[in-house]
Structure formats: structure tokens, C-alpha cells
């Protein structure tokens, strides 16, 4: 099985304080990895470090066996990142938020509607997003997962602010995208029912 | 490329010597300029302000250039000490620019009959002072020291690119609204017994500038590294 992403001795610092120390892990193609840790254990930092958003990062990150600095463009265009901040514009409608996500979209309009239908916001398409609840906003973000094909999805705490139904929804979306051959790296406070490898952050060094 | 402890020790060793030497040198140069140099036949004795005014104006400008140079080093090679130097220069350069403005204004009263004219040089010096103020306020607002160093460096670099443009545009603007006939550049051509003390004063100002910047750097290093062992060892 080929490895999509692999880290070698990944160390991240913030203002010279070590947050992640010598982490080694690999994300196999079509499989999922879950990062588990309490608040402040460096889950978000790990995700952002993989994307090169943390300047004080040491160690190697390999994409298809090559250092990501050499295949930067290829890597960025195959990755989908969703952080705590979802990048959803409150003054746009749901449809517009799907039509103009945070990356250029090459997707047909029918696909947007079917994605919206899958996450259960199809009857809200022309509502302005500022009138929606947190859970509904989160669903717009989920619909964005479905409208484009990426190799790797890096998602920060997808399970927070969602009810049981929403949690099931994410699991089905992840399963569907796994079938297409995509991989997931998700974070969370505790273990989910996701079939995945687990990485435990924070408690290991104490 | 020295690290903070070695730079700190270096500053601490040379500082007392440099301090006393530059104070003596400054006093000597000022004495030469204010008492020994001959009286100017056109302006009388008021011209002696030049021995303070010109050096402080020169330092106000070269201080900014130093800041931009070290800002560049801080941004491109991420040298932390360069950021500290930028931060240490800013208030010193600002006070020398202010000194140039105030002394020029006091000089203007007996020679031009007014405290202030909207002359090209005065205006561009005033804007230089505002640029210093902008950088200082950026330093004071951003809590994280290294972040602030780099933000200040960016502004110093952008500012240094714009200074020649300011000078040039201010020159044009002045020719447009031509009303004043004053010009600093028409000062009498100098004889050696006026020129040499002026040169000596400029050198003395450079030295005292260096002394102040070094003392500020020492403070910066201690502030940032107050929790490290080598600082504790140094002071206990």
C-alpha cells in the first residue's frame, strides 16, 4: 500500500516552545488517521504545520515519498484544508458560499445541489448565511467536501458543534470519499467511531 | 554571527569605555564649535547652532538608513539581533530628528525671523519624524517582540524607499507655492576653522548615537532573555 503523506521527526515550535516533538506517522492512500488530544495539545498546529503554515517546523514531510518542498504545488492542489475558521461568508447565501469556496471551483451546478441535498441544506440554498445556526453553517462546510475531489482532506475537529445525525453524516461522507480513494486526517478530543489509525498528542510526554 | 550572550558580554565590556570617550569627545567638539570657532560675518554668533543642528539632522537620516539596512537583514536572514538593533535605533533616531527640527526652529527665529517655514527640507524632515513615530507605535502595540521587530522592519524598508520620493516631491511642491525666499543651502561657504569643528561634532554625534543604541540593545537583550541562566549568572 502506498503512503500518501509521511512525516519524519516532525517538530513544531511556537515562540521557541516545543509543541510537537519528533512525530512520525504516515497516512496510507484511501485510509484515515485521527489525531486525538485535549485542548492545547497541538492538534491544530500539526495540521497547519503539514500545510506549511507554521514557520518554526523541523523534520521532513513527504508527499508520495518526496519532500513537499519539492512538490509544493502538486501537494497544495491535492489537499483540502478545513480549520476552525470555516471561511464562510455571512453575507452570502448558502448557494453562493458553495459556488465560491476558498479554492477555485470547477464543478457543475447540479453537483452543488446534490451535495447540499446530501448534507440536508438543500431547502436553505437562497438563505443568507448570517441567519443560519452554527450546525447549519457547519453543514455548508461539509457540503464543500463533496463538491470537489481531493486526495487528502485535513479537517480540524469536524465532530464539534454537530448532533448525532451530523456525526453520522460526516462518517458517511468520509466513507464515501474513502471509496473514491481519498484519505482523511481529522482531529478530535476523543476517539470517534471512525475506522482509522490514531495519533495521541499531548499526554505522551508526561 | 554572534549569539545574544556573546553580544551582550561584548557590549558590557566596551560600554563604559565608549561611554566616557564619546562624552569627552562630544564636549570637546562642542567647546571647539561654540567657543573657539570664529564668528560668522553674516549671521553673527547664532550660526553656532549649526554645530548641533547639522549633526542631529545627519543622524536623524542615517539612523533611518541603518534601521532599513538592519530591517532588511532581519527580514531576509531572520537574524534576531538585527531586529533588536532596529528596535533600539527607532527612538534614538526619532529624538535626533526632533532635535534637528527644534534646533532648526530656534535657529530660524534670529536668522529668518520666524520659527517655522514650509520649506522643502523642513517638511521632509518633519515627515521623517512622523515615519519614526509610526515605527515606534508599531513596536509598542505588537506584544510579541519578534513579530514587532519584523513588522517594524517592513515599515522601515518601505519608508526608506519612499524617502527620496518625499524629498523630490516636496521640492516640487515648494517651487509651486513659491513664497519664501529662505534656503538653507545658501549658507556661507565655510572656512576650515568652521568646517573642522563641524566635522568633529558630526563624529561625536555618531559616537553618542552608538552609545545610546548599545545601551538600548543591552536593555532589549536583558528584557528578552531575563529567564535564561546566562543573564542570571551575569547579574548574580
Amino acid at each position, binding site marked *: 500500500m502506498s503512503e500518501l503523506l509521511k512525516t519524519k521527526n516532525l517538530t513544531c515550535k*511556537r515562540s521557541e516552545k516545543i509543541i510537537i516533538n519528533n512525530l512520525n506517522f504516515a497516512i496510507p492512500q484511501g485510509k484515515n488517521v485521527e489525531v486525538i488530544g485535549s485542548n492545547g495539545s497541538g492538534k491544530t498546529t500539526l495540521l497547519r504545520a503539514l*500545510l*506549511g*503554515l507554521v*514557520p*518554526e517546523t523541523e523534520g521532513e514531510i513527504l508527499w508520495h515519498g518526496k519532500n513537499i518542498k519539492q512538490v*509544493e*504545488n502538486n*501537494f*497544495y*492542489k491535492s*489537499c483540502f*484544508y478545513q*480549520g*476552525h*475558521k*470555516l*471561511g*464562510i*461568508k*455571512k*453575507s*452570502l447565501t448558502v448557494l453562493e458560499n458553495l459556488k*465560491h469556496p*476558498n*479554492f*477555485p*471551483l*470547477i*464543478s457543475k451546478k447540479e453537483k452543488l445541489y446534490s451535495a447540499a441535498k446530501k448534507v440536508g441544506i438543500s431547502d436553505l440554498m437562497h438563505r443568507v448565511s448570517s441567519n443560519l445556526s452554527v450546525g447549519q453553517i457547519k453543514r455548508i462546510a461539509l457540503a464543500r467536501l463533496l463538491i*470537489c*475531489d*481531493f486526495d487528502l482532506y485535513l479537517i480540524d475537529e469536524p465532530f464539534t458543534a454537530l448532533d448525532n445525525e451530523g456525526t453520522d453524516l460526516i462518517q458517511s461522507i468520509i466513507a464515501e470519499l474513502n471509496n473514491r480513494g481519498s484519505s482523511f486526517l481529522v482531529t478530535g478530543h476523543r476517539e470517534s467511531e471512525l475506522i482509522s489509525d490514531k495519533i495521541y498528542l499531548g499526554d505522551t510526554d508526561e | 554571527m554572534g549569539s545574544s550572550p556573546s553580544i551582550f558580554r561584548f557590549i558590557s565590556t566596551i560600554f563604559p569605555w565608549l561611554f566616557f570617550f564619546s562624552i569627552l569627545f562630544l564636549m570637546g567638539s562642542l567647546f571647539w564649535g561654540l567657543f573657539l570657532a570664529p564668528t560668522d560675518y553674516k549671521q553673527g554668533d547664532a550660526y553656532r547652532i549649526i554645530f548641533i543642528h547639522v549633526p542631529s539632522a545627519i543622524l536623524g537620516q542615517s539612523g533611518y538608513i541603518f534601521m532599513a539596512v538592519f530591517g532588511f537583514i532581519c*527580514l531576509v536572514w531572520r537574524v534576531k539581533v538585527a531586529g533588536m538593533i532596529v528596535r533600539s535605533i527607532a527612538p534614538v533616531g526619532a529624538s535626533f530628528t526632533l532635535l534637528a527640527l527644534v534646533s532648526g526652529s530656534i535657529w530660524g527665529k534670529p536668522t529668518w525671523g520666524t520659527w517655522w517655514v514650509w520649506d522643502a527640507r523642513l517638511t521632509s524632515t518633519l515627515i521623517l519624524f*512622523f*515615519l519614526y*513615530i*509610526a515605527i515606534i*507605535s*508599531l513596536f509598542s*502595540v505588537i506584544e*510579541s517582540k519578534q*513579530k514587532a521587530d*519584523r*513588522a517594524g522592519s*517592513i*515599515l522601515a*524598508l*518601505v*519608508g526608506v*524607499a*519612499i524617502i527620496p*520620493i*518625499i524629498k*523630490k*516631491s*516636496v521640492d*516640487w*511642491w515648494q517651487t*509651486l507655492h513659491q513664497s519664501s525666499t529662505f534656503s538653507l543651502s545658501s549658507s556661507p561657504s565655510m572656512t576650515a576653522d568652521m568646517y573642522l569643528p563641524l566635522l568633529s561634532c558630526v563624529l561625536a554625534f555618531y559616537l553618542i548615537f552608538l552609545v545610546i543604541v548599545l545601551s538600548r540593545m543591552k536593555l532589549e537583550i536583558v528584557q528578552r532573555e531575563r529567564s535564561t541562566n546566562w543573564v542570571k549568572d551575569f547579574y548574580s
Partner: protein
Amino acid sequence: MNNRSNLTQWMLLILKKDLLLSYRRAATYMTPLIFFLIVVTLFPLALGPDKSLLSTLSPAIIWVTALLASLLAVESIFQEDYRDGTLDYFFISGEPIFILIFIKVLGHWMVTGVPLLIAALLSSLILFMSKDIIISLFISLFLGSFSLSLLGALGGALSLGRSAILSAIIVLPLSVPILLLGSATVFSAINYSDYSVYLFYMGAILSLAIPGLSLATVEAIKLNYE
């Protein structure tokens, strides 16, 4: 995979989205516009209705007011995108970021600078400016307001998440040459002398500012990611 995006698509996305956003929120383009018109009308009230005095002062009034109005808009350039995480995606686009930032500033100028141009033309009538100099006012404002937007972007990026006064302190001294050259253009047009040299220098400043300030702005934004 089939969704490889390129630079042109990114540029179009940013421009389209920003224009759509400001179309939805009229405040983004209306606030500087209304501010401009109100301040310009304050001058005749303070100076008195003297026609010749107003027309003499009009280039200065319009330029200073345009400068202040463009400062008003500085805050909004990156603030929202930074807060809701949209800026993150610029850095993981795999495209040259300073071009994306430049497009962002271009979009910002289209919704704040262009309305100012129209307002300036309107207020040149209120201030009894003669018709033949309006063209010099228009060209100088066109070049100048774009440079001011680029400067404002740097100010907004450096003061991201901080007070608006800070960005004003940063931007104002740097914008002096634009103000001087801009009003000099109009003043020399009033005196029937050749003003092309000022426009030439304003164009030179703009063409230096486009790459230089875009790069500086990227560096300034990066500071917030540490």
C-alpha cells in the same frame, strides 16, 4: 485529479467573491463615498461661499478629503478574511501569494477608489472648479487612489486585529508624496502649465508600489501566522 486550479482561476475567484461581497454590503463602498461628500460640503460652510477662494482651494480640499476617505476603508481590506480564515487559503493555494494579495487590493480599489473618483467629479462642481482642469483631477486621482489603496493594504496588514488609528499613523506619512504630487498636478493645471511630469511620477510611484507594496503586505500578513 480533475480539480487542478491555476492562477487565473484564483484571481477570478478573489475578484468575483470580493465584488459580490461588497455588492451585498453597501456599507463597504458607501461609507467612504458619503464621508467624502460630507467633508467636501463642510469646506464651503467653514470658508464661506466665496467662489474664487473655493476654486483656488478646491484641489487641496479634494485631495486631502480623498486621502482621509481612503483611510476609512483601510480596515476592511483584510480584517474579515483574516477572522473567518479565508486568508489561510491564500497561503495554501500553491500560487504566488503577492499576486493574490494584489488582486485583493485591486478588488478593494474597485469598490472604494472608483466611487471616490465619481464623488470627486461631483464635488469639483460644488467647489466651482473650471471644466478644463477636471481631466487633470481625474487622472491624478485615478493613479493616486490606487497607490493609496496599496499603501492602505500594507497599513491594514500591519495593524491586523488592532486599532484603526495605528493604520492611520502608518499610512499617513507614507502617503505624503501622493498627496503632494496629486495636488501639484491640479494646481499646475489651474496655472495652465504642463502637468504631465507630475502624472509621470505618479505613474512611476504606482508601478513601483504594485510589486513592492504587495510583497511587503504579504510579509506583514505572514506575521500573524506565527
